[in-house]
């Protein structure tokens, strides 16, 4: 649990004063005052009383904008001149009754005044331009303020008083979870993104489920095993009913699997249905699932196939029906989704009676909602938000950042060069500074302890720029070479900042690095260009999340010809073939360990960090974040 702290009203007022102060200072310093003074003098020089009146108004406008004392003084002078002019005009009006000449003179004065006014309005336009400049300066002040705020956040004042009571009573019968984006649909078989899973994971269940250590265990199936290499038998749990009262049985289980593998079924869970041919009931509480060959990952696939009632159609996208501990209540588009406890749940009853998901797209607003007690859990907060959250917890996610090489590019073809580039990067530094400690160097593989195929003997490459330089010389590149580092913006947290450090550290070993930032969709297109073709990215920043906890998930990045791969190592591809088709899990694990050992000698990427997921929570909410990125409310409680 991280430190709890909130800012108080006076603190904010001070901030406002700071921003206004900076604003005023920046306005005063950009020469407006001088300009105003010169303008005011010019107006006086004309010596026309009426013109002076106009100048007074003009100068005042500039003075007010620039807040400069000098301009104000000039304005005072001009104003007195204006009074004089008014008096003259009044005199003229008063005298007009008697003298025709004087009337003419007064009319002349009025015309002069009008001209002067037109002149003044032109200068007013100029003043407006100055105001625009002041606005730009204000933007700078704003940036400065943010820095100030950030440093305040990092080092809260010891005397900060307790935050005001928000007046919103904490309801312990209910948990409100902030999600950044609304699910496409509530049909669990169609979606798998995090925002969707927060809901579907509590309402739907699968035959298998991961325990707290991410090991597969019994869900709606109580027993399972191979009948032969391509047939798996699952024994279903008795006495389970769907929220609509229909029974969970062999018919609905087989239907669920056949539905999701259907040819025309659009689903984000596509990777979980490959190689499954079909399912059929084998008795009342057993089903057989057949695959189109030995399928090593069938069990983890099945764990990602939610069970739906027999015959369910598109309507469950609007009004979902599952077997989970919570059942659907309402979906207010763009706003919230709610669920309540399922009284007929087969397992232990959860302690929190209802669940509400609120859509809050902006991360800062979500944090504010957490601080005010409107929401109880915010997924994925940023490291700098941690001090502001009532409570924060984190978990080492199965997410690995890396920079993939295009090994087909000549200068990157030698393993020594790629090892040298791995040694050039200070991963600890990036973890500690850019990610503020919420990350750690990954052990040179897209796997971590607990995942199938993790190789504990591989260590992260040491940070050794001198050694890296020597390797480059040995490889025949004493002068280095030119290479482009490609980073997508707005996709991965702080990729740009991390990328800049990496670019610099590669330059430090003598490489000439082009740093290129990409819009995400363009980046995706460019990233798919095969390594042998024109336009392929030399160095591509990526972020691999291994939610399978299995070496098989990394296949597309490292095997010959795979969609994200720009390396072709026959041995690695062979080992992944074994891992992907053998149903003996120990044989599989060995194959992946071998493959990653080889990928240490022949790196496909600069291995960077394993990232943390950080969650902001209400101070009285108790929850241990899960490794598998699931959010089961049945595991949450209030103290």
């Amino acid at each position, binding site marked *: 649990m991280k430190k709890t702290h909130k800012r108080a009203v006076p603190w*904010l007022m001070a901030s406002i004063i700071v921003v206004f102060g900076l604003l005023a200072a920046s306005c005063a310093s950009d020469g407006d005052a001088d300009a105003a003074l010169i303008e005011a003098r010019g107006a006086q020089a004309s010596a026309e009383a009426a013109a002076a009146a106009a100048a007074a108004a003009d100068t005042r406008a500039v003075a007010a904008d620039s807040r400069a004392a000098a301009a104000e003084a000039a304005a005072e002078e001009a104003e007195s001149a204006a009074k004089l002019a008014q008096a003259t005009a009044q005199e003229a009006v008063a005298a007009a009754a008697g003298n025709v000449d004087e009337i003419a003179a007064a009319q002349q004065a009025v015309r002069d005044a009008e001209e002067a006014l037109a002149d003044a309005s032109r200068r007013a336009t100029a003043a407006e331009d100055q105001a625009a400049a*002041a606005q730009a300066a204000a933007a700078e002040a704003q940036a400065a303020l943010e820095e100030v705020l950030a440093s305040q956040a990092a080092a809260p004042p010891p005397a900060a008083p307790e935050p005001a009571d928000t007046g919103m009573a904490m309801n312990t019968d209910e948990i409100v979870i902030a999600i950044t984006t609304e699910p496409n649909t509530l049909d669990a078989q169609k979606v798998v993104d995090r925002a969707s899973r927060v809901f579907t994971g509590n309402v739907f269940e699968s035959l298998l489920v991961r325990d707290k250590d991410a090991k597969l265990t019994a869900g709606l199936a109580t027993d399972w095993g191979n009948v032969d290499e391509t047939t798996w038998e699952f024994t279903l749990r008795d006495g389970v009913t769907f929220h609509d009262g229909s029974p969970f049985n062999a018919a609905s289980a087989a239907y669920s699997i056949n539905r999701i593998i259907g040819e025309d079924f659009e689903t984000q869970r596509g990777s979980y249905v490959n190689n499954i041919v079909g399912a059929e009931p084998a008795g009342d509480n057993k089903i057989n699932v057949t695959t189109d060959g030995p399928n090593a990952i069938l069990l983890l696939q099945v764990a990602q196939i939610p069970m739906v009632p027999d015959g369910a159609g598109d309507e469950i996208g609007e009004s979902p029906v599952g077997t989970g501990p919570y059942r659907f209540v309402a979906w207010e588009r763009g706003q919230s989704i709610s669920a309540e406890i399922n009284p007929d749940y087969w397992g232990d009853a959860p302690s929190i009676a209802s669940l509400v998901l609120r*859509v809050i797209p902006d991360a800062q607003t979500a944090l504010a909602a957490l601080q005010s007690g409107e929401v109880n859990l915010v997924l994925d907060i940023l490291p700098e938000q941690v001090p502001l959250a009532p409570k924060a917890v984190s978990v080492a996610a199965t997410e690995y950042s890396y920079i993939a090489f295009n090994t087909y590019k000549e200068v990157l073809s030698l393993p020594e060069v790629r090892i040298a580039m791995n040694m050039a990067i200070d991963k600890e530094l990036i973890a500690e500074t850019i990610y503020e400690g919420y990350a750690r160097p990954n052990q040179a593989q897209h796997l971590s302890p607990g995942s199938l195929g993790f190789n504990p003997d591989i260590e992260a490459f040491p940070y050794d720029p001198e050694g890296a330089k020597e390797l480059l010389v040995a490889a025949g590149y004493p002068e280095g070479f030119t290479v482009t580092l490609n980073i997508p913006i707005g996709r991965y947290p702080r990729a740009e900042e991390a990328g800049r450090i990496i670019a610099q550290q590669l330059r430090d070993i003598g490489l000439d690095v082009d740093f290129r930032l990409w819009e995400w969709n363009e980046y995706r297109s460019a990233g798919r260009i095969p390594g042998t073709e024109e336009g392929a990215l030399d160095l591509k920043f990526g972020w691999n999340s291994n939610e399978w906890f299995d070496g098989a998930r990394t296949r597309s990045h490292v095997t010959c010809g795979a969609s994200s791969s720009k390396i072709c190592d026959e041995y690695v591809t062979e080992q992944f073939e074994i891992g992907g088709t053998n149903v003996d899990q120990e044989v599989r694990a060995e194959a992946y360990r071998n493959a990653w050992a080889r990928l240490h000698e022949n790196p496909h990427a600069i291995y960077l960090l394993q990232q943390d997921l950080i969650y902001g929570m209400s101070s009285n909410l108790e929850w241990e974040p899960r490794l598998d990125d699931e959010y089961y409310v049945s595991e949450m409680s209030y103290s």
Partner: protein
Amino acid sequence: MSSTDNKESVLPARRRARAGEGIGVLLLRRLRDGIITLLLVVAVIFVLAHVVGDPALVFSPVDASDEEVERIARAFGLDRPFWERFGSYFADIFTGDFGESWWQNRPALAAVAEALPNTIYLTLAGIAGAALTGIVGGVFAGSRPGSLFDRGSNFFSISALSVPNFWLGLLFIVIFSVQLGWFPTSGMFGVSSIVLPALTIAVVHGGRVFQLVRSATVEEMSKPYVRVARSKGFPHRMVLWRHVLRNTGLTTATIAGWEYVRLWGGAVFAIEWVFAWPGIGTLTINAAERQDFFVLQAAVIIAGVFVIVSNLVVDLLYRVIDNRIKSS
């Protein structure tokens, strides 16, 4: 007024004919311009959406194979030639078919229609606040230039329109929701939810209304007729509210209308995003992120319609006020 006649005689014949035309002709002309603008908007959106990024790629998983991407492209008809898609797209829009949202699995128009009233509600509340504070403040400040009120409010309004609106929104959330607990931070739950987003709009856009109304008032106050009226001994208040206000009315109405158009032009989008307001802005940004082309297109076209309609209303209002001034 002789000066007006002088001005008109300098205008080219075409403009002069326009200046004299009736309100019906003006309406028709504006409608024609509006429709042309709308057609351009529709075309630009389509081209942009199909040139920037590949929608099929966006919809497929990150490590999808090429076959998978192709299959998705086929499913959405993205494999057809550009001009064919463009033609059927235009035809569909004219029949009111804005396509099916990929993201929400329902007609794009339904998604937009659901968000539209929320944005109208917010923009109207916001612009009412902006007009009220801007006009009242601007007239008071402008009538006594250099006074403490003038200097104070001028400074405040410059500051307000110098900060980004989303940042001001966040500041209000932190002060009024987190610290004081007066209003909800975000969402649209009951009347209290609208206070902070509407206040943000009122402050930022009110700041601009204030600036322009103030300078219009200052200018008007220095005109000869005011001086004459004052020298005749009419009280300040009477001159201000009976003459000056009426003559600045044109400027004021135009500015308020303009600010409303600006809101629809995108200013309200960031505010909706920050306050998790389920309106067109949040919908548009989400649709853009997911490359949900049909929702994006429907939302932008509807927002475009609102900009055009608001402009039209401002024009007509301008004409009505102008006529009243002339006839009086």
